[in-house]
Structure formats: C-alpha cells, structure tokens
C-alpha cells in the first residue's frame, strides 16, 4: 500500500472514530471532558511505554485509556466535595496529570521518539511507516489496525446501545425510570472516548483529537436536530476535513494534523455563519425582524388606545413613541403592506384586520396564555418561528 493512501486512510478512520463519541459528548455538554481525557492519558501512555516499549501495544492502549477513566472519576470526586465548581475541577485535574506526563518524558525518555511536541500534535506523517510485522510479512501500518479495531468496536456498541444511549442523553430521568442505567452509559461513553483518544493520539496528538471530536459534532448540531442525521453529518465533516486537510498540507508542505484541524475550523466557520435558521446571519436577521415586529405591535396598540386624530398623526407618532424617523417609517411601511393600517392625509387609521390583530394581541398580553397566541401565529406573520 503506498504511503499517501495509507495516511489518508488513517486520517479518515481517525476522524470517523472520533466524530461518533464526539456527537454524544457535545449533546451531553461534556465536550471539555474530551479535552481533559486527551491531556491526562499522557502519564498512562508514558508509563505504558516504559513497560511495553511499543506505542501500538494493546496493553499500552488499555493502560492509557484507564488513566483517562481515572481522570473522569477524579474530576467527579472533586466536584462531589463541593470545594470548587465543576469547571474548576476539570481545569485542576488535567494540567496536573499532563505535567506529570511531560516531566516523565523529559526526565526518563528524552531519547525515544515520544517527545513532548509530538504529544501535542501527533505525527500522522510517520504513522504510515510504522508497519505491523508478523514474521517477515508486512500487514500495513500498525495504527491503521488499532484505529479500525476501535472504530469497529465503537460502531458495534453504537448499534447495540443506540436506543439506550439516545434516551440517557436526552432524558436521564426517564431512562433510569425505565431501568437503563445512565451511570453505565456514562462510563461506557467515557471508556469509548478514552480508548479512541489513546489510539488517535499517536496520529493526531492530544489537542487535535479534541478538535476531531468536537468540531464535526458542533457543526452538525447547527444544521440538524435529528440524532441520526447529526451522526452522519459529523462523520461526513470528519472525512471531508481529513481528505481536504491532507492535500492542503501537501500543498503547503506543513503538518497534516494541523491542516486537518484548520479545514475543520473553516467548515465550522462556514456553518456557523451560514447555517439556515441557526447560523449567525440567520439569527441576526431573525432578531432584527423580531425587533421590527415588536415595534409594529407597540405601534398598533398605541393606535388602538387613541381615538383623537391629533394623537394619530404620523409626525406625532414619532414624538410619542420616541422612535427615530427611519424606524417609524419601516414600521409604517410594514403595517401598511400587511393591510393593518391605512394612512389618509397623514392620519393613521387601523383597518378591520389591524383591529382584529390588535385585540388578539391584547387578549394574549392580558391573559398571558399560550393558546391565544396559536391563532395569531396562523393568521399573521408575527410570532412566526
């Protein structure tokens, strides 16, 4: 297998393996646990390396994953003492463990290829050359084997426990009432996240593994609210960024894992800006429209309250409600376009439709009952969405 294909394949497998647990971490508001785990498996990896002297050994992977679980347990134990808040607990545990790992490397292992720099960003470039040898046969890169095994296990568990996982993510109360143990799901997910982090570690490093877990899921979450689609989308984003990142890195002659993350960042930026209904632009547009709609409502209520022509002259309205000229004009235009008012000789009149609308709105405001607003939603553009 040529090395280019091997690297792309490893990158794709890693990003898919990370994206799946990432979706659940994001949904469970535990995104930063992945940050904590990815840092604190380092002492596990170093100690494992002293024992096995092989970075791809299954024992090392288990040992390191175990130190990931210890982190989760430690964070939860500190939270339980109530001495500090949850986020502080995370922020205290992982730098300490990571520091121990870095120092262990610096003191005992400075001559092996486990240097602190590689720990942060990984060495995807070399991952393809570390071949699995049985006898004299080469069976492809080692990391490809470890990552695809992890991916298969993840997929098997995902299909087996999909329902339970979904339930415990969205409704812990219901899932424990139905007899599924949320604690078991929690630690199961943590174990998968730890193992995935450990096997991805060699290829993409401690911090970029966080990007591979969170960014695809976050981008997908802005595009859909359906769990199946979210998983598929984040897998897709992962693969696109892995392939795109590889060619970008080759073109720039720079770090592959850094470039994959950069592509992921661009994908997220695009989604963040342009996602329909949840992207920044859509949100800003909606907020602006809602502001005008609320102004319109205020305006109509004002008209309803005043009978004398004196109070309803266009110029007077500007003074009375204290709006600028532009805003008053926008509101007037909008109301006229919707046939809620008509203007004769600079005096504003409510039309029949306008009157009906205002009364419904008043009804809603006075009673504050949701069912009142339901009719309005159908009849008028206001309160849409």
């Amino acid at each position: 297998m040529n090395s280019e294909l091997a690297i792309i394949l490893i990158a794709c497998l890693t990003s898919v393996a990370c994206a799946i647990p990432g979706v659940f971490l994001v949904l469970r508001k535990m995104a930063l646990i992945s940050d904590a785990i990815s840092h604190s498996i380092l002492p596990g990896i170093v100690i494992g390396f002293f024992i096995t002297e092989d970075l791809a050994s299954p024992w090392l992977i288990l040992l390191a994953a175990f130190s990931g679980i210890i982190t989760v347990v430690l964070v939860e134990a500190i939270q339980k003492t109530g001495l500090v808040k949850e986020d502080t607990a995370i922020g205290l545990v992982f730098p300490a463990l990571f520091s121990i790992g870095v120092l262990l490397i610096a003191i005992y292992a400075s001559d092996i290829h486990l240097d602190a720099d590689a720990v942060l960003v990984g060495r995807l470039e070399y991952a393809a050359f570390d071949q699995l040898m049985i006898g004299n046969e080469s069976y492809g890169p080692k990391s490809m084997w470890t990552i695809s095994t992890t991916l298969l296990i993840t997929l098997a568990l995902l299909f087996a426990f999909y329902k339970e996982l979904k339930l415990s993510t969205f409704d812990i109360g219901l899932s424990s009432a139905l007899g599924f143990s949320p604690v078991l799901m929690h630690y199961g997910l943590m174990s998968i996240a730890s193992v995935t982090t450990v096997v991805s570690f060699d290829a993409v490093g401690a911090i970029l593994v966080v990007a591979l877990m969170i960014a695809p899921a976050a981008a997908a979450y802005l595009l859909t609210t359906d769990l199946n689609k979210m998983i598929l989308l984040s897998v897709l984003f992962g693969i696109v960024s892995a392939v795109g990142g590889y060619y970008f890195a080759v073109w720039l002659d720079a770090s592959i894992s850094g470039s994959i993350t950069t592509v992921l960042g661009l994908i997220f930026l695009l989604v963040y800006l342009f996602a329909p209904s949840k992207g920044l632009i859509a949100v800003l547009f909606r907020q602006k429209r809602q502001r005008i709609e609320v102004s319109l409502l205020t305006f109509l209520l004002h008209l309803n309250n005043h009978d004398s022509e004196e109070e309803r002259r266009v110029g007077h309205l500007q003074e009375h409600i204290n709006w600028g000229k532009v805003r008053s004009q926008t509101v007037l235009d909008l109301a006229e376009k919707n046939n809620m008012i008509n203007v004769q000789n600079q005096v504003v009149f409510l039309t029949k439709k306008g009157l009906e609308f205002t009364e419904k709105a008043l009804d809603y405001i006075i009673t504050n009952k949701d069912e009142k607003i339901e009719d309005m939603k159908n009849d008028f553009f206001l309160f849409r969405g």
Partner: protein
Amino acid sequence: MELTDFFTDYTLRTITLGTAVLGAICGMLGSFAVLRKQSLLGDAISHAALPGIALAFLFTGLKDSNVLLLGALISGLIGTVWIRGIVTKTHLKTDTALGLILSLFFGFGELVLSYLKKQPDANQAGLDKYLFGQAATLVESDVMLMVIVTGISLAVMLLFWKEFKLLLFDKNYASTLGFNTRFIDGLISFFIVLAIVIGLQTVGVVLMSAMLLAPAAAARQWTNSLGMMVLLAAVFGMFSGVFGTAISATYNNLSTGPVIVLVAAVFVVISFIFSPGRGILFKQIRLIRNRRDLELKKTLYFMYGIVEKHEDISRPHAIRILNSFQGFTKGTLRALADKNWIEIKGQDWSLTEEGFETAQNLYNTNIPES
C-alpha cells in the same frame, strides 16, 4: 546550585523575579475567573493565543517577545469574542464553544508553526518554547513588561474594586444600580486575557490555564472574603512560580511550565485537605465529632426514658438494663459521667439533676443551647 545563587546570579534573579510577578498577577486575576465560573475560559484563550504568536512571526519575521505577545493578545481576544458569539447567538453550549476555539485555534497555530519550520531561511527555533514555556529565556525587558502589566492591572482592579465585586456576586443588582455591566465584564475578561498572554513565555500555552486556576482554587478554601482571596491567591501564585523555577533550574532546565503547575497543584491539594473551614480533613473530623455527640445524647435520652418513670431521679439503675440499647459502650458512659450528666457507682448508674434537665430539653429547640 546554592540558595544564595538566587541573590547573586543575575540571570537567575531576573527569572525568579519574573516568575514571582507572573504568579502574583495570575493568582490575582485568576480569582475572578474562578468566581465567575470561567475557569476553563483561560484554557481556551491560552491555546487560542498560539496562532497569534506564529502569525506575528510569519508577518514581521521578528522574534522580539513583545511583538509575539501582541500577536498572542490579538488572537486571544478574537478567540474570546468568538466564544461569546457562539454562546450567545447559537444553541451550542459554553463547553462546546470553549473546546472548539481551543482546539481549532491551536491546530491552526500548529499548521503555521510547521509551515515556518519548513522555511529554509527563517530562523524560527525558539517559538517552541511557547508550548511549554521556558523561564530560562526570560530577560530583563520581559520582566519589566510583566511588572508594568501587573501594576496596571492592580491599579485598575483597585479603581474598579467595588464594581468588580458587585458584578461577581450580583450582576442584576449591578445593572439596576446603573453600572455599565458590559463594560466591566469586558474589562475583567480583557485583563484575564492579558495575564494569560504575558505568562505564555514562562508557562506555555498548554498549561497556562492551571497557573490561573490553581492558586485561586487553593486560596478560595481559606477565606470567604474576596480581598483576602485575591491576596492569598497572589501569594500562592508567587510561591508556585519561585519554587517551580528553582526546581526546574536545578534539574538541568526542565520545561518550567509543568514544574510550576505541579507545585501549584501541591498547594491545591494541601488547601483541599487542611484548610480549617472547608478542608476535607476538618470536615471529616467535625462529622465524626457530631456523630459521637449524637450517640452520646441518644444514650442519655434512653436513660432519661428509664428514669422518667420513677419519682426519684437519682435512683441508681443497673448498667445491665442498657444492654438492649445499641449506642453505649464503656467509653460513652465515661464521657457522660465526665459531662456530669450521670454518676457511675460500681455496676449501677444514676442520672444527675443536670443530666435530667439536659435530656428533658434535648429535643426542645426553643431553648438556646448554652
């Protein structure tokens, strides 16, 4: 290395002074971060500063630390603003936003750094020190910068002390009083970013957040007053900086960042366990003491139940009849006698006047405990 080197060796003195000042400012501003529940914001910002450093070098070609730190400051601020943008404008939660900015910015920074490494002419060696920090590279001008920044932030903190405090504990009240909460909020965040950025050279982007958190978390355990906490955190931070530098200098220039973080972690562990008010140890001792006290009073009340039926309070009863009751041992009987609640004569016990009254009022909450 001898202890006296700290006072005679010029380089070492500069470095020690630098880390001490850094520890102090981090502890000071970190207190606000911890109390505002923004502990991990520091982590995200420090990682987000990396592309700033790399780009500043790419564009200027200068390795002057002031230029690089300016780049770090700008990209840290962009990261902060973006995090706020994600949290306020979308339905993604804070943790996701922090994780995103942290890893995406860092990855981009790594991309630029690796690109720089491949450039034939540019001498980029030394940028790596911003990953884990290398206090040994501090020079006098760096320390001057730290002192100036610390001075400014101290002045601003004292000037806006009342506002900061109000915002921390009751934001709504602050805005009803007419304070511009957004401005004050921004001001605190700006200084936290500033503290992170000046620490990058010494502690590095990866571990800077712990430098901000650990002293504050430790100080929180010893006091409930904001002023005291800020002061204590500054002191803890200072000591972590000095000890950390000393240890890392002794062992053949280990990266300073991890050593300082571990020293700070020791402070945290000690505070968690031994602080008199909140510490685990004293909490446990109080728990055991309370439990014993409860057992004692239960025994007393059981005795009271027996004595109540007789007219003569001081009439002795055999210890034997207590056997059906679980909560007594020789020790508790002696403790009761010590309190002068009962008298023990041979195999018999009797309630004293005082013991009878105590038992009578045991569950009467209207009488204040004397």
